[in-house]
C-alpha cells in the first residue's frame, strides 16, 4: 500500500490490520511517534493525518486516508514550527518522551482555535505526560498562539 509521510511517498507491505504506529516505527524507521499504551489512552503516538491529530496506535494502516505528518515533518527546512519554538522558549520537555505527541496535538488545535482559553486548552490537550510538564505546556501553547510570554 501507498503512504504519504512528511511529503514523501512510501510503499509498504504491511498486513491491513497493522496499526499505523508500527508501520511508521518498525517499517519506515520514523521514530518520532512514540509507543506509550497501544490502546489510544495516552497520545504519545499522535500524528497528523490531513491535518487532524490521530492516535496512530489505534489507526489500522488500511484505514489511513490522507497525508501523514509526524514530528519529523513539522519544521520547514531548518526552521522549527512556531509551536516547537514556543516549546524551546519555555523549556517544556523533561524526559521528552510525550512531547512529539503534545506538539502535534497543539499544532492541530491551534489551527482550529488560534486564541484558546484555558478551558479550551484543558479540553483539547488530553495527552498524558508522566513528568508533569503541564504548567509549561500551557504557557508554551499561549506563546505559540501569540497570546502572552
Amino acid at each position, binding site marked *: 500500500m501507498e503512504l504519504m509521510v512528511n511529503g514523501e511517498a512510501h510503499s509498504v507491505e504491511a498486513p491491513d490490520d497493522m496499526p499505523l504506529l508500527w508501520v511508521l516505527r518498525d517499517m519506515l524507521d520514523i521514530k518520532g511517534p512514540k509507543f506509550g499504551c497501544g490502546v489510544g489512552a495516552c497520545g504519545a503516538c499522535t500524528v497528523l493525518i490531513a491535518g487532524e491529530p490521530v492516535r496512530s496506535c489505534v489507526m489500522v494502516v488500511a484505514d489511513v486516508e490522507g497525508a501523514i505528518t509526524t514530528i519529523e515533518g513539522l519544521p520547514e527546512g531548518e526552521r*522549527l514550527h512556531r509551536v516547537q519554538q514556543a516549546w524551546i522558549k519555555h523549556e517544556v*520537555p523533561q*524526559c521528552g518522551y510525550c512531547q512529539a505527541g503534545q506538539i502535534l496535538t497543539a499544532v492541530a488545535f491551534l489551527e482550529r482555535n488560534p486564541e484558546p482559553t484555558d478551558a479550551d486548552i484543558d479540553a483539547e490537550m*488530553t*495527552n498524558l505526560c*508522566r513528568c*508533569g510538564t503541564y504548567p509549561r505546556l500551557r504557557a508554551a501553547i499561549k506563546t505559540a498562539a501569540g497570546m502572552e510570554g
Partner: protein
Amino acid sequence: MGKIAKYTRRGFMGLGIAAAGGLAVGYYYYKKPYPNPLPDRLEPGHFSFTPYVIIGTDGAITIITPRAEMGQGTHTTLAAFVAEELDVDMNQITTDHGPAAPVYYNTAAMAEGGPHPFFEDGFVAEALRSAMGVLGKFLALQITGGSTAMIDGFDKMREAGAMAREVLKMAAAARWGVSLELLTTASGEVLHPDGTRLGYGDIAAEAALLEAPKSVVLKDPSEWRILGKSQTRVELLDKVTGAPIFGIDVELPDMLHATVAMAPRFGTKPLSADKAAALATPGVLNVVEISTATVTGFAVIASNTWAAFEGARALAPTWGAASYPNDSAGLTALFERALEDEASFTFGGEGDAIEALQGATDVIEARYSVPYLAHTTMEPMNATAQLQNGKLQLWVGTQAPGLAKMVAADLLGIDADNVEVVTTRMGGGFGRRAEVDAAVYAALVAAETGGRPVKVTWSREEDIRHDAFRPMSLAHLRGTIKDGMPEALDMKVAAPSILKSLLARTFPSMNSPGNERAILDGAFDQPYSWPHARFAAHQVDTDIPVGFWRSVGYSGNGFIFESFLDELAASGGQDPLEMRLAMMKDPRHAPAREVLKAVAEMASWGQSLPEGVGQGIAHVLSFGTWVAEVVQVDMRSGAVKIDKVWAAADPGLVLDPANFSDQISSGIIYGLSAAIGQQITFSDGMVEQENFYDYDALRMAGCPEIEVALLENSPRMGGAGEPGTPPVAAALGNAIFAASGQRLRALPFGNAVGFDLG
C-alpha cells in the same frame, strides 16, 4: 592512532591518581582509583583529561555525564559542574553519558543508607555515611537514584574541570615560555597577559602529555558564572524535534523485534502455552522460554513489534499458583497479622512511648494504608541486545548500567568485561529503571537469535503488571496529647523490605540485608521533638516484587505520619502549622521551620476561607531536601477540586533554580496522581490493572496551579527529583479534612471521595 592512544593514556593516568589524593572529598575514596575507561574509546585527535573531559584538536569539548537522564536535567547540571571550572561556556560543549565503568560509581547513593536522620551529624552518622560511600565504590554502583546525582557529582566533577583547566594552562605556559601564574582562562581559551590566546583544542595534544598537579583550588561560589543560574537543558532541541534518542528508538542493521509474556503470578512457572498459535501469527519467528531469578516467562521474537505483541496474545500461557495471598483482601489480612506480631525492629524514637500510652486514657488511634503502585514511565520498558562471539552489547535506558552489566554477564556465563552497555536517554525513570529486568530479558533473548540484534519492547500491560512496585503498607498509630501538644506516639508500620526483594531477584546468592530504613523513612527521621515516640517496623515479605518508587519509603510514610500529626493537632485544638513549628525545637530543625513559614506566607495560611474550602499543610525532609507544601481544595460542588499547591523547598544549595523548581513541581504532580487515583490491586494472584484506562495519572485539565519557592538554609546539599513527592498526599488529605471534616486514611483518596479533574 597507536601513538596518540599511548600518550592519552599516560596523561590520563597521571590525572586519575592525582584526583584520588589529598582533596576535600578524599576520605570517600578508597586508595586505588578505578581506571579511566575513555582512552581506549577515543577517536584520533581526541584526548581525555580525567574520566570526565575529552578535548579534540579541532576544539570540540565533550563532557561525560555518567548518570541517567530521565528528564530531571541531570546531564545539564553535571556538565555545568565541569564547565564552571574548565572555563568553557555551556554552548561550547556536548555531553555524552559515557560507558558503564566503575570509575563513575555513585558514593552519595549509598551514603544515606544508615539508620540516622539526615540532620544528625554526630560521629557515628558521619562514619556510617562515609562507610556506605566506600561500599558503593566496591559495588561500583553507577546508579542514578535517591536524588543523589548532584551531591555525588558536585566535588568530583568540579575537580575534574579544574584539573583539566590547570593542565591546559601548563601546556600554554610551556608553549609561550611564561610562568603559569600569569595565565588565565575564559570561554575555552588560555589568555596571555599580552592579549594572545590559545584555544584548548590547540594545546590539547601537548597538555595530554603532562603530569597533572597534585591538587587544585576550586572557585569560590561568588565567582561562579554558570552554577546557581538556570541553564538551558542540553537535550532540548532533540526533544522538540522527535530525535530518536530513547532506548525504544534504537535501530540496528538486521535487527529483530521481540516482546515478553511474563508470569503474572510472581515466582510461578508456566503450566501450558500455545506455541503453535503464537508461531502461526504472521511475522512471528520464534518463541523462547526464559527462567531466571530475575524474570520468568516467554519471549516472542518477530519481524516487527506489533507481530510480537500479537504472537504473545496468541501464546496465552497458563501459570502455577501464587505463593502469596491471592487477592488484596488476603494481602491486607496478612499485613494486619504482621502488625499484631512482635516488631521486627525499631529506629529512632525518644522516651518510653509504650509506658506513656499504657497509663493514658484519651488515646488517639488510627489505622492507615497505602497501596502497591506501578511507576508507569511514559516509555515502556525495553532494551536492545546483541550477543556475538561471546560479547554482549546492550542498549538500554537504565539508572544502573553497572548492575545491568554484572547481572547480564552472570546469567549468560560470560565475563563482565565482555559486556558493553550503551545508556540511552530514557522516557521517565522514577526508580523503575534502577531494575535490571528489561536489560536481562533482552540479553537472554539475544542468546536465541544467532548473533542478530534484537529489540525487546514490553507492552504497556506487561510494564504495569510486572513492575517492582512501591510497597503496600499498613500502619497503626496511637498518640496522646498533653496541654494541647503531642505527648506520646507509637507508630507501627507493616511493609516489605525493598532490598530483600531486590536482592532476591538480582543477586539471589547474596544474604538478606539488615534492618531496612525505608520501612520507617519519613517518620522516625523527621525533624520533630517528642517527649515519647516509638517507630516500629513489622516486616512482611512476599514474592510480589517491590522496588524504588519516586521517594521510596517517604512516599507512604510521609502521608501516614504527616496526616496523623494533623489528627493530633485537631485533637489538641492546635493550628497544624503552629503545632509543627512548636515541635521543631532542636536548632538543627531550623530549615524545616523556615520552609514551613515560607509556604504558609505564600498560601496566606490562616486566612478565612468559605465553607467547603480548606487548606492542608505538610512537611517532609527527604533525600536531604526540606519541603513544606500547602494544598487548597474546594469541595463546594461535592467533589474535590484542587485549587492550588504551594511548595517551599530547601536543598541547601540551589544549582539550577528553574530546573530545581520544575523537579519539585514534577514530584508534586507525580504524588498527586498517585494520591488521587492510583492503586495496584490483586485478584487470582495477579495484578488487576492493565493500562492507562485503569491506572491513569493527572492530565492537563486536572493539574492545579503550582507555585514553588526555594530556600538555602540547610547545611548540606540535598536532592531534587524525589523530595517534592512525599508531602503532597498528606497536604491534600489534610486539606480535605479542613474543607469537610472528613479524615481520609487510605490511599488513593479516589476510593472514598470524587475528584473534579476538569
